[in-house]
Each structure stands twice: as structure tokens, then as C-alpha cells.
């Protein structure tokens, strides 16, 4: 198991370095004159030269890339450009915390619901219930999250007034008030991911239900619920765990539209602001943060799967 963790972590690191290279290309190499862009079109040339010097933009590109990697290792991304004097990390940290709250809340709602949906659909394969769950999932997962956010915001938040339509949470709010504010954005996430996770769970469960060990379990006299609980789920949930691990990374940074609709100060909103400013140090730090979270969550998912299924420990790096 230790060797598995080591190999798996090494692969994650390689992926992360490649990704930092891509981010480096997009923020340092492709923009013509990033310093000019940062200083603004009417800034004096001296200011641009000064920026080039302080940012290290005059160094050869490989040196710059090495510096960026060192920055990531030491977590020193420097100062923000849109808000001079503010450390980039001090902007990323609260956004990361906000995203974490929303993502965790959404997952707590989505995962049990979709697993239940997927297992029910698999148990009643090809019945009306199955078809209803599958088709609802397909439709709801097709709707971009900002679209469902806009619709929920209007119908539930504005028209019916059941839940707050924005996420401008009062400072002294209790945890329950806070969750109430997060419920609408979380519901939009549930809508997108229910279909996705339920579908994977359904497929996994159908395979597990048709397998030999399930038949053996039935034949040794177990009733249906213990067969499902003890034998089927442990196998059928492996794809579900893998997909959820992947999706956590997307949820931290990919909900730009949803965060914009609800004015939520998460990582997606931060990245959008950093990109349009443009604030390259902030953009780098925020996107690399998303990438690191993706690495960690997929790593955690793979370890969980390896724990559930010893065979999975053998083929690391094969897929």
C-alpha cells in the first residue's frame, strides 16, 4: 500500500508540473508585454520597465519557469496587481475557504442522494422508476449550472421568497443561517451532479448485481439488503468514488458562472476577476490552487478505491 501511495503521488506531481507549465505559458509567455498590460496603456515606459524588473520578466523563460516552481513550493506568490500591497495568498485563502464551504455542503447533499438514485435505478433496471431517474439525470446534468442558478434564483429566491436570492451572508450569521444562504447555489450544483453521479453508480451497481459473488451471496442465504450492503456497494461504488474525486476539483474552480449569479466570493469568482483585471500573480496562484485541490482529491479517491479493492493497487499509472 505504501508503494502504491508513493507511485501515485509521484504521478500527481508530474501532472502538476505540466499544468504549472501550461499556466506559465498562458500568463507569462503568450501575453505580449504582460507588464504593459498590468501597468495600463497610458503608463510611462519607466513604470513598465520597473514592472519587468520586479516581476523578473527580463529573465530568460526557463529561469522564469524555475522561479514560478520555486514560488509554488514556498507558497510565495507575491503581491496582487489589482490590489497593490495585498499579498496574493491573503486573497486566495478566504476564497478557498468559501469554495470549500459551498462544495462540501453541495457534496453532502448530492452524493447520498445520487447514490440512492443510482442504486434504486439499478435494482429496478428497465422499469419506469429506472427510466425516470436516468432521464431526469440526463436532462438536469445537461443544463449549465449558471442557467439553473438563474432559474432557481428567480423562482425560489425572488418569486417564492423561500430562500435568500444572494449569498451576501451577514457577518454575525449562525451556521444555520449561513447554510440557508448557501442552499440555493448548492441546489444548482445538486441538479448538475445528481445525474452524473447517479448514472455512474447505476452502471457500477448493475455490473456488481450481475456478478458471481453477488449470486454466491444470495445462494448462501443472505437477504437482498445485506447482499447490497455487504457485497454490492463496496464494488459498485468504486466508479462513484473516482468520479466524485474528479468532480471535487472541478467544483472548486469551475463554478464561475454560478458564483457570479449568486455573487459568491469563491475561487471561481476570484479567478474571473483576476483574469479580467488582469492580475497575473493572483491568477497564477488561484489556478494553481485549483490544480492542487484536483490532485489531492483524485489522489484521495484513488487511495479510497485501493482500500476498497486491493486489485486496484496493482495498475497505477496504467490508465
Amino acid at each position, binding site marked *: 500500500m505504501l508503494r502504491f501511495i508513493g507511485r501515485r503521488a509521484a504521478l500527481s506531481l508530474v501532472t502538476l508540473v505540466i499544468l504549472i507549465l501550461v499556466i506559465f505559458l498562458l500568463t507569462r509567455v503568450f501575453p505580449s508585454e504582460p507588464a504593459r498590460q498590468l501597468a495600463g496603456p497610458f503608463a510611462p515606459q519607466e513604470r513598465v520597465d520597473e514592472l519587468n524588473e520586479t516581476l523578473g520578466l527580463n529573465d530568460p523563460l526557463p529561469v522564469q519557469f524555475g522561479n514560478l516552481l520555486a514560488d509554488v513550493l514556498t507558497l510565495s506568490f507575491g503581491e496582487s496587481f489589482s490590489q497593490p500591497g495585498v499579498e496574493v495568498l491573503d486573497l486566495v485563502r478566504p476564497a478557498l475557504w468559501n469554495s470549500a464551504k459551498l462544495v462540501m455542503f453541495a457534496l453532502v447533499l448530492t452524493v447520498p442522494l445520487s447514490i440512492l438514485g443510482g442504486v434504486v435505478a439499478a435494482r429496478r433496471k428497465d422499469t419506469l422508476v429506472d427510466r425516470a431517474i436516468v432521464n431526469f439525470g440526463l*436532462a438536469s*446534468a*445537461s*443544463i449549465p449550472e449558471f442557467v439553473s442558478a438563474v432559474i432557481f434564483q428567480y423562482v425560489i429566491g425572488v*418569486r417564492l421568497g423561500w430562500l435568500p436570492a444572494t449569498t451576501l451572508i451577514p457577518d454575525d450569521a449562525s451556521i444555520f443561517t449561513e447554510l440557508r444562504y448557501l442552499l440555493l447555489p448548492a441546489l444548482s450544483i445538486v441538479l448538475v451532479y445528481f445525474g452524473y453521479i447517479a448514472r455512474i453508480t447505476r452502471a457500477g451497481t448493475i455490473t456488481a448485481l450481475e456478478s458471481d459473488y453477488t449470486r454466491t451471496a444470495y445462494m448462501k442465504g443472505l437477504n437482498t439488503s445485506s447482499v447490497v450492503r455487504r457485497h454490492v456497494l463496496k464494488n459498485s461504488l468504486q466508479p462513484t468514488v473516482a468520479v466524485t474525486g474528479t468532480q471535487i476539483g472541478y467544483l472548486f474552480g469551475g463554478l464561475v458562472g454560478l458564483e457570479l449569479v449568486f455573487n459568491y466570493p469563491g475561487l471561481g469568482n476570484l479567478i474571473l476577476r483576476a483574469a479580467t483585471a488582469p492580475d497575473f500573480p493572483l*491568477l497564477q496562484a488561484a*489556478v494553481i490552487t485549483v490544480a492542487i485541490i484536483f*490532485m489531492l482529491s483524485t489522489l484521495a479517491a484513488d487511495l479510497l478505491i485501493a482500500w476498497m479493492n486491493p486489485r486496484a493497487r496493482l495498475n497505477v499509472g496504467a490508465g
Partner: protein
Amino acid sequence: MTAIDDPGSEATGEERAAETPIPDEVAELDAAVATAAAERKQIRAERRRLLLRTPGFVLGVVIAGFWVICAIVPGLLAPYGANEAVRVDGSVIARQGPSADAWFGTDTIGNDVFSRVIFGARSVLITAPTAAALATIAGTMLGLVMGYYRGWADEILGRIIEALLSIPVILLGIMTLVVFGNSRIVIILTVATLFTPVVTRTVRSAVQAEAQLDYVTSAKLRGESGPFIMLREILPNVTGVIVVEFTVRVGYAIFTIATLAFLGLAADDFTTPDWGNDISNTYNLIQSNNQWWPSIFPALAIASLVIAVNLIADSLDKVRSS
């Protein structure tokens, strides 16, 4: 996996057989391939019939077909122009909710929301399928080479693809548009580039599975060149996978392009009707003025189109794997 479409290999096999004396095992393999070919034609006809009897497929085609008609001849269905103010008794009615004069209401400057939704289909139906097609072509070529030759190039490209897939498409999209500008061409190329890794991964694994089958071994023994085997032997057998992947990508492209437009990153001159841009420009009115119609209707249009495309993709996939 066993049911494969391979119109190419049967004919070429016979041609080659006439030209040169060939070892017995090759002849045997070719004979097996030839008998399988007859079955395939039947299977394909069967699948077409099955597809037309899938309710999801028919529904998807009807909805998507409706939007395609809107994109080609919007004037047929739209009562007003995309930038034509609705007038009642000579005066412009702006900010009005849905009524008999304007079914989906009017926006802040009096444009008919219904007509704008109809006209708006064109923009997304040009950009999304183009981007998906470019990604499919690039991904197919890369996937063929990676899956057939394997080796170190496959290893390195595979790592790069993993890395690109480990960050939300929308984030890379935002960064690219900020760097390269926000014209329609840039958006198409950006989405195409961002989708290429996914397509490559799908095609690569399909090709890798095909490359181990008898007909490929047979072609290798005949001394066919690598490009010939990839394009004439393997490619026809993975078309099913590629068609499904393309359809899925069209859905995601609509999704992604609409999101980028919603984020205010697509070029927007306020006159060209575009669902994403229109929502972006009007969704603030929901909360401030309780005007939901200029944003909710284009939102529903996006949702219906993506659902339709995914229904088609889903049915194609089911029929292919049945």
C-alpha cells in the same frame, strides 16, 4: 466490440490476395474478416431501425431540428427582427412582461425577447458544432497515432492530456480568451483546443483495443504501412465511438460557449442576438427589477438545446454498444 463496421478491409484484402501469394494464416484471417463483413451491413440497418424507435433520439432530433430551422431561417418564426422594437399603437413598449404583443416580453430597449431567442440560435449553432468538429478531427488524429504506435510519444502526450484534464475547462477558457482576445474565431479555436484532450483520450483507448484484433494483425502481416492501417483499417471501426464523442462534445461546446458569453468574455456588440450574451446583459434585472423574462427564456433555450443534443448522443451510444 465484436460488431464492427469495416467496409475498407474486406475489399483491400481480396485485392491483395490476387496480387501476391500469401501465407495460409493471413488467408484464414482475411476469410474470417470477409464473412464478418456481410453481417455488419445487416447490423447497421438494424441499428438505424433501433435508433428511430428510441423515443429519446426522436425527441432530441425534433428539438435540435427546431433550433436548426431557427438558425437557418429565423424570419420564418420570429414575428419581429432581432433588433426591432415592439410597437403598440405607434409607441415602443419596453420592459413589458409576456403578453399577446410580445410572447416572451420585451427587453430594456423594447426588443421582442421571443424574436431574439429565435434569432439567437444561429450564433451558438455556428460556433459550437464547428469547435466540436475541430476538436474531434484533432483528437481523432492524435488518438489514432497514440493508440496505434504507443511508445514514448504516447507516454508524454498522455501525461500532458492528464494535466490539461485536471483543471476545469472553463478556467483554461477564461485564461485563453483574456490572452488572445474574445472574437468568435478565438472562441471556436479555444473551445476546440480545450476539447481535444478529451476526444484524444476516448479515441486512443478505442484504437488501442482495436489494434489488438485479428484484422489489424492480418493487415500488418500483409505488410501494410502504419498510416494505411490506421486510416483504412482501424478508423472505420472506431467511427461509432467518434460519432458519439462528437455529439457529446457539441453539447459541451454549447454549454461552454454559453458560459463564457455569460461571464462577459465573448465579444458582444449588444445587437447580435446570442443566448449567452443576452442572459449576461439582463440577469441583473431579475433581482433589481423583477424582470425575469429577458434572461429566463434564453436560459431555457440553452437548456433545451443541450438536453436535445445529449439525448441524441445518449441514444447513439446505447445503440452502438447494444
